[in-house]
């Protein structure tokens, strides 16, 4: 192969790598992040309606593929469903799709831990668009008052926090994501943090001193200490197990989210921003 050709190829790669690294730097830099965020926002404003339209047309295909992948479990589930079909018929009026949707929505009404905080209800459009993050995309954005940093709650407690806000959509980082850290308080004003560990591991509570009095099932609430990024009193997680290893500087605590993370069809975004 001629050398000039190879040099041109290498030069192309070097240019692409340098441009990519520059774009990443712009995105990760707090001062220039607005630029990339703006580009993403415009792209999402164009792409979201288009995507919704295509989903409406293609959802039967997606459902078919999902059904094909989970054929074994669907077959077993089908057997169970057949056994209970008689019972279901009597409850048919209550089992309609609209009623299920309504139940999901009403479960978000009058969440006791929100008090007088204003909130907007949003429908989840996408779950974890990347295999490397645990996020949901919701159908409310800046136009509805949703902004970066706002807490998102579901039935039971905290679901996550808004990390990207576009015009009509927003991305919520779930508390189970490996990057999520929530300041919590529990028991007799004991503080700590609840850390997400990604999909492969249970969540954990850190920075809790050893021999702290705890019991399984104890609920941890969001804390208002140290300029916290969340309003106080939102249930975050429940203690699953705990122990203190000899010589450890903190207790090892496994926790589970207090919110039902498997039913996130609808969530509430709390219109609350941390005090300046």
């Amino acid at each position: 192969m001629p050398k000039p050709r190879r040099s041109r190829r290498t030069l192309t790669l070097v240019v692409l790598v340098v441009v990519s690294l520059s774009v990443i730097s712009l995105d990760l830099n707090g001062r220039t992040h607005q630029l990339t965020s703006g580009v993403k926002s415009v792209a999402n404003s164009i792409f979201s309606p288009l995507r919704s339209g295509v989903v409406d047309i293609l959802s039967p295909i997606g459902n078919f593929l999902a059904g094909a992948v989970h054929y074994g479990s669907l077959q077993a589930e089908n057997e169970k469903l057949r056994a209970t079909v008689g019972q279901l018929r009597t409850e048919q009026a209550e089992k309609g799709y609209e009623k299920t949707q309504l139940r999901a929505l009403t479960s978000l009404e009058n969440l006791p831990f929100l008090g007088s905080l204003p909130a907007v209800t949003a429908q989840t459009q996408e779950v974890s668009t990347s295999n490397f993050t645990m996020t949901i995309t919701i159908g409310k954005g800046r136009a509805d008052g949703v902004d970066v940093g706002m807490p998102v709650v579901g039935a039971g407690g905290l679901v996550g926090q808004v990390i990207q806000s576009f015009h009509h959509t927003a991305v919520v980082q779930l508390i189970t994501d490996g990057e999520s850290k929530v300041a919590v308080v529990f028991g007799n004003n004991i503080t700590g943090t609840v850390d997400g560990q990604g999909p492969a591991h249970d969540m954990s509570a850190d920075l809790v001193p050893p021999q702290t009095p705890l019991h399984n099932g104890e609920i941890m609430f969001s804390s208002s200490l140290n300029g916290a990024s969340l309003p106080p009193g939102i249930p975050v997680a429940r203690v699953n197990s705990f122990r203190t290893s000899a010589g450890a500087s903190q207790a090892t605590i496994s926790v589970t989210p207090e919110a039902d993370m498997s039913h996130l069809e609808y969530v509430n975004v709390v219109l609350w921003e941390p005090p300046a």
Partner: protein
Amino acid sequence: MSTRAALRVVLVVFVALVAQSTVILPVRIGGVHPDILWLLPITGSLLAGPETGALIGFWSGLAFDLVLPTPFGLSALVGSALGYVMGSATQAVDNRAVWLRPVAALVGGVGADMLFAVLGAVFGQQQMVQVNFLTLFAVVAVSSVILVLPVNRLMRWALVVDSNRRSLVSAQPAESGLW
């Protein structure tokens, strides 16, 4: 590459992006979904050489970055590298070999995901290395092998616009002068 071919590649990238976020995203096995993105630079580089593969990887990565919550530009960086490496590594192989595309899709898909996770962690996104890699690699490997054939067909349609380029694409990818 002719303007017509470039426009067709843009169309293919757009179709792949729509397919990923509508049909492919709901297909989850162990919480992991297939990833069509890496197949674009892989097939592009097999059809038209490392330079074209790198360029397709960059632009398709950038397009996918617009809708991903990961750092903007990360997919473009990995896509560029993937297209270049796959194109360079397969230059000596007969492009018509039946096994080439499935093997390239398997190795390239898994390798790209690994690089994506490691680079993400390097750029401060520690959660990207906290996933279940065994499930991830298994799902991505199998789905890439299955999806590479339709994606390759689309990419061939995009890149081989003129009939006189057909022979060049199959025989001498790097010499075709598509760019």
